[in-house]
């Protein structure tokens, strides 16, 4: 055995910073008590911000470290910046809420920070083991976050439900990984890719079994149909800022991981996995569009909406081309802005006696709070995919990629599903603008949130004028993943 070399730490600097910051802030919180939760919150946001800047500063080419278990490339950089940004926004969104609900706990921002660390590790995974470890770090933090209102029965139920089903999904993922290891003798993505790329290599049934199990575990994490059952209950039960976090960052990270796996090691086996992804995409789009129609709770509605959006994003992945990945990344970036904005509006739905979550409470919002109504209307139009708002372009690029990859049927079903889905998004706009006003909401949103929601709305509206930064960096990132 050659003498062990110290692995190069450079590529992992953002992750190391996050880990060290989490431990240091844990100490700050423990010694200063729960009175320090605001301080810990802002410091966590700062840590996430610095990590994002460091990620941008990493070299653009593909770098491996830690015995090839950790990879940084253009794709990882793009996704990590999105993940870190949405985690920081999730903390900012929660601070005001934590104060008002008297959940003065410094662990909240810390768990978001640790979840962000797990997500960054997932995005950079280049080995089945590092994939699992990152995924588990993220999931464990999320289980605790879902149940953080431990005095409320619904929040605890959401936490337990998420935990039990998440553990089952992790089990499936591990089973799949062990089958893949058993049939190939390696867990490293690069080694798997070289193996499958050999002349005349034909996959055995057991290996395909492994891929199916792996895909099932990942589909659970992105909440694609038929592994979506937990989503509405958990989204409804978890506190609203936690739901806002769940709907964005973990989905982005898990979708990125999904793409890295199927287009990295299993790129040669596209015929095997494409049918799975196509099925997941169709089922998610259709169910997301149809099941949301009857919802009366806005968080449940957003849960079904996010299931549908995962379906659209998977259309890009099903294409399996560089163009498809580019579409997926653009979709995720736009989805981030729309969802953060929509959830800030939902967070502002508060009356004297606490949060309200019913859609009918939005009635007549245009008269009581014209600004918020306009912002929410923009996000709803965009989520429905109505041009010229950003949401339209997200869908446009994935569908174009699918058509170019010969999946015309899939794209047609996607278009039909988004027409059906438009109904329930537009219904919210109708309730806000044309119904008799319901009781007014309490004090307007805080200044930070006002800034964020305005930025998200401006992005959504003006994306059409100046799309090139996102389009170009997504193209660079996609080129890094698909050689």
């Amino acid at each position, binding site marked *: *055995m050659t003498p*062990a*070399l110290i*692995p190069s730490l450079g590529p*992992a600097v953002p992750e190391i910073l996050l*880990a060290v910051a*989490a*431990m240091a802030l*844990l100490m700050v919180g423990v010694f200063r008590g729960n009175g320090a939760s605001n301080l810990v919150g802002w410091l966590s946001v700062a840590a996430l911000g610095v990590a994002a800047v460091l990620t941008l500063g990493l070299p653009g080419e593909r770098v491996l470290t*830690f*015995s090839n*278990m*950790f990879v940084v490339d253009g794709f990882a950089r793009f996704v990590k910046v999105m993940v870190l940004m949405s985690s920081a926004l999730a903390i900012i969104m929660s601070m005001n809420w934590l104060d008002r609900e008297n959940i003065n*706990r410094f*662990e909240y921002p*810390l*768990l978001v920070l*640790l979840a962000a*660390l*797990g997500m960054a*590790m997932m995005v950079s995974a280049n080995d089945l*083991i*590092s994939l699992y*470890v*990152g995924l*588990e*770090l993220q999931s*464990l*933090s999320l*289980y*605790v976050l879902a*149940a*953080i209102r*431990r005095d409320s029965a619904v929040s605890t139920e959401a*936490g337990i439900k998420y935990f039990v089903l998440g553990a089952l999904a992790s089990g499936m993922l591990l089973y799949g990984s062990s089958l893949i290891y*058993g*049939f*190939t*003798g*390696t867990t490293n993505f690069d*080694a798997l890719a070289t*193996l499958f790329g050999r002349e005349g290599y034909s996959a*055995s*049934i*057991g290996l395909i*079994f492994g891929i199916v199990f792996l895909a099932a575990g990942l589909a659970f994490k992105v909440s694609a149909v038929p592994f979506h059952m937990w989503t509405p209950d958990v989204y409804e039960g978890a506190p609203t800022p936690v739901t806002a976090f769940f709907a964005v960052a973990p989905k982005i990270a898990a979708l990125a991981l999904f793409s890295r796996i199927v287009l990295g090691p299993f790129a040669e086996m596209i015929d095997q996995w494409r049918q799975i992804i196509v099925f997941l995409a169709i089922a998610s789009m259709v169910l997301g569009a149809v099941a949301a129609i009857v919802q009366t709770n806005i968080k449940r509605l957003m849960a079904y909406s996010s299931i549908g959006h995962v379906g659209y994003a998977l259309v890009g992945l099903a294409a399996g081309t560089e163009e498809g990945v580019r579409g997926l990344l653009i979709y995720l970036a736009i989805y981030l802005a729309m969802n953060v904005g929509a959830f800030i509006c939902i967070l502002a739905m508060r009356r004297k006696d606490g949060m309200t979550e019913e859609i009918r409470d939005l009635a007549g919002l245009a008269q009581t709070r014209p600004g918020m109504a306009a912002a929410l209307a923009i996000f709803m139009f965009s989520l429905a995919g109505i041009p010229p708002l950003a949401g339209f372009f997200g869908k446009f690029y994935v569908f174009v990629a699918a058509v170019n990859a010969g999946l015309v049927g899939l794209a047609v079903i996607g278009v039909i599903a988004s027409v059906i889905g438009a109904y329930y998004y537009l219904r919210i706009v109708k309730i806000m603008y044309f119904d008799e006003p319901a009781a007014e909401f309490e004090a307007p949103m805080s200044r930070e949130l006002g800034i964020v929601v305005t930025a998200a709305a401006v992005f959504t509206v003006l994306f059409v004028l100046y799309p090139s930064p996102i389009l170009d960096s997504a193209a660079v990132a996609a080129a890094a993943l698909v050689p």
Partner: protein
Amino acid sequence: MIIETLCFYLFAAVTLFSAFMVISSRNPVHSVLFLILAFINSAALFLLLGAEFLAMILIIVYVGAVAVLFLFVVMMLDIDFEEMRRGFLQYLPIGALIGAVLLAELLLVLGTWAVSPEAAEMAAAPTPPVEEVSNTAALGQLLYTHYVYLFQAAGMILLVAMVGAIVLTHRTRKGVKKQNIGEQVRRRRSDAVEIKKVQPGQGI
């Protein structure tokens, strides 16, 4: 050689027997004790394989910590196991059916099982030769060099588990007397002792 074989069959037989007794004995305390017996015999099997580190870990961690914890739980929580078993027969048919389906599926997979040639060739686990280093040293070399990333990441997961357990269950109770070492050390004679002159026949 023959002794080794005899030992193997002895330990293996005792392991199987005690594993069976774990699930069949009526008294849960007996179950845990049989579990400990199973652990110790499996440790002996590890020793026969030359994996002395795993053998010791199995005894220290599983017998020393996990099984004792089980024993505590079984003794402290008064669980009526008869009550839990009552519904067993009711669910037996469907359970057996699912089990049979799973078994059939597994047999189908295993029927076509062949060790893939790649598995042997790719499996270049960087383990040093057994003759040169003891397996404790070999494990350490792998864990702290090749797998250091995963080792640290697993540490972060344990940290999250700890933070999570405290967040979800810790409550500050009122009226709990806590030890404050600083205060105890600072304590002087004058804080604790007071001399009262008591006049005879008057009391305090």
